[in-house]
């Protein structure tokens, strides 16, 4: 069974600060996706990374896939209150469309 561990579980920061959240596994994934979920809604895809060492940027968000494709990180620069939410990473194995989700990092950005 492939497991994804996310850390920290909870994070509360002031607006304008930088933060990094992590997604780690002992298993290799062929691709990894990051989703954000807001209260009362379903997760929404932010990015997909597929190549070891890949870095993708989405405005103030930077996503990195580890060289060995076992881990990933999400860095947010100058956090805003609109970044508040649950950040979920999800991995899939080779040829599989089935996703294994981590339990998420709940981020609160305080004005």
């Amino acid at each position: 069974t492939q497991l994804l561990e996310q850390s920290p579980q909870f994070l509360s920061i002031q607006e304008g600060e930088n933060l990094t959240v992590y997604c780690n596994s002992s298993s290799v994934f062929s691709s990894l996706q990051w989703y954000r979920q807001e209260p009362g809604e379903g997760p929404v895809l932010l990015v997909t990374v597929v190549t070891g060492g890949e870095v993708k940027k989405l405005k103030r968000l930077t996503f990195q896939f580890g060289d060995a494709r076992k881990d990933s990180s999400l860095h947010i620069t100058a956090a805003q209150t609109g970044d508040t939410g649950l950040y979920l990473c999800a991995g899939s194995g080779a040829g599989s469309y089935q996703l294994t989700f981590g339990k998420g990092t709940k981020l609160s950005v305080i004005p």
Partner: protein
Amino acid sequence: DARVTQTPRHKVTEMGQEVTMRCQPILGHNTVFWYRQTMMQGLELLAYFRNRAPLDDSGMPKDRFSAEMPDATLATLKIQPSEPRDSAVYFCASGLVTSSNSNQPQHFGDGTRLSIL
């Protein structure tokens, strides 16, 4: 934007009652997933379908849960009889998978919040 639609959004019922949750996937998507989300376990895959055929339901308690796709526009998840431990948010997601690209996003509905008293 096309969206996955789930009904009802909220359901409160007593244990032992039958619960039916419905999902309308995005038109043209060929894969449908059912997930359950709790604080303790996070998002867990219950079952998924490709072209309306069930591919994997190993995450689902088979004695009380059943999932079907009567047609391409409707997926259902039933619990009978329901138990308090089934209380959770149930999400449906859909996607379009092709042989050349399995890294397609899953599009989630806004879930059914189920409370079994």
